């Protein structure tokens, strides 16, 4: 059985996750095109019709992936919603919990 998830970590500490089942059903492969924009060195290529890494994970984490988030945004607009990028911000989470205790709301929730 082929892999269902492609996941890797970037220099910034973000985790980029491709749901390859969704990618299989995607016609546009917009993430690949977005990853090949001018100035941005690509890290993705199509292998057997699926997004795959052009470099090993150590190189990706060392900065080959520029954390441009273009793949995720392109996927949202033109793909099948298979790409998600998560970036942990524990101190921001702590701040938001503290706000709630004070009865305050962040501006985006007002």
């Amino acid at each position, binding site marked *: 059985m082929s892999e269902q998830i492609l996941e890797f970590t970037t*220099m910034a500490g973000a985790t980029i996750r491709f749901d390859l089942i969704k990618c299989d059903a995607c016609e546009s492969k917009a993430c690949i095109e977005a990853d090949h924009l001018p*100035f941005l060195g690509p890290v993705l290529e199509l292998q057997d019709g699926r997004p795959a890494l052009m470099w090993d994970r150590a190189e990706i984490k060392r900065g080959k992936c520029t*954390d*441009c988030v*273009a793949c995720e945004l392109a996927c949202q607009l033109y793909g099948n919603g298979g790409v998600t990028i998560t970036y942990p911000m524990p*101190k921001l989470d702590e701040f938001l919990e503290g706000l709630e205790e004070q009865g*305050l709301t962040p*501006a985006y929730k*007002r």
Partner: protein
Amino acid sequence: MARLVEYEGKTLFEKHRIPVPKGKMASSPEEALEAARALEGPVVIKAQVLSGKRGKAGGIKFADTPEEAEKAAEEILAEKIGGFPVKKVLVEEKLNIDRELYLAVTSNASTRAPIAIFGLSGGMDIEEEKEKNPDKIFVEDISILHGFYQFDALNMLRRVPGLASTDMNRYASILASLYNIYRQYDCKLVEINPLVVTAGGIVAADARVDIDDDAIWRHPDLGIDISEEAGAREPTLLEIAAGQIDDGDHRGSAHLVQIDPDADYAKRHNKIPIGYNCVGTGCAITLFDEIYPLGYYPVDFCDTSGNPPSIKMYAATKIVFSQPHIQGYLMVTGMAAQLLDNTARGIIKALKELYPETGGKPNIPCLLCFRGRSDEVAVKLFEEHGISDSPYFNVLGRFNTEKSAAEEFDRLYKKWVKETGGF
């Protein structure tokens, strides 16, 4: 810079055999009472805050009995010093002072090397004292290659008139220890002000240790959160969150300082608090000059420049929008060489996550202005993602100034208030 509070600095001093007064930390009046009982005598209760001049702000009180210490701690713990609440006090034995001196090791910006300083008057502002009584301040350049040993300090102190040789040895030993702390912990300043001479010996009555922000990661043992430079106060959680964006990632930078965390200044001056992000601090200052007279006050100062990756912009945007009091968002770039399409992508990702129900259209008026490399792509990205459709959202391009950006934000804000009632 990261600054240790007094008791943390004194803990470092003790490790380096610099005598400090007997004392104990307290987080409540009851703990202060117990600490004073254990010390068995008159005590001093000191607010543990980073703000200078805490004495004048009522952050230092004396007590002859444990009950007085309890009351004093209660008063201090109810205080705000420099706008920030006092969470801890240090209860210390009261010293019978014969003489006060000043000792420090710091960095000399001119020579780009450390210097040792010895002053014959302690407890004063060293800069003022240098102006008033330059003959009482003794400074020694230190070669970082050679180091600074007790015999180097002795050579320095020989220039001080009237010092007994036994005292000279003791002060030299402390100066050498201060240098060791300065080097070991990548400090910008290690200061004892004052070093108190009592009948029983010498003790560091205060401790100031400022550590280079960029070196904090090398000292996990100190337990300091990497944060933005907050000046003479503890960093806020949002500043710590912002500080962590650049941690371990050298590509560009995201700096954020909360100028007015509770929007108190803005309210008192009848200004509208807004979130603020610029690319380039020069642009940020110019824009501040334009937006302030229109009635707005940026409660944060955020600079994302040096070509940061989109993910940093995303994180910075989330932080700015998390501030509870802002009633608008203003983001302007200087004539940036950085890839502004990357800047735009970070903002778009943040807005789409913060406002999933509207597809990224914010609930507050927002004005963005991109000027520089890939600025046209940046503007188009907001159109492509449907965010520009919002009636209170506009993205301007390179043929705009800080003035026109501020005026457009003002127009959007007034429209938002008129049509929605605002907050």
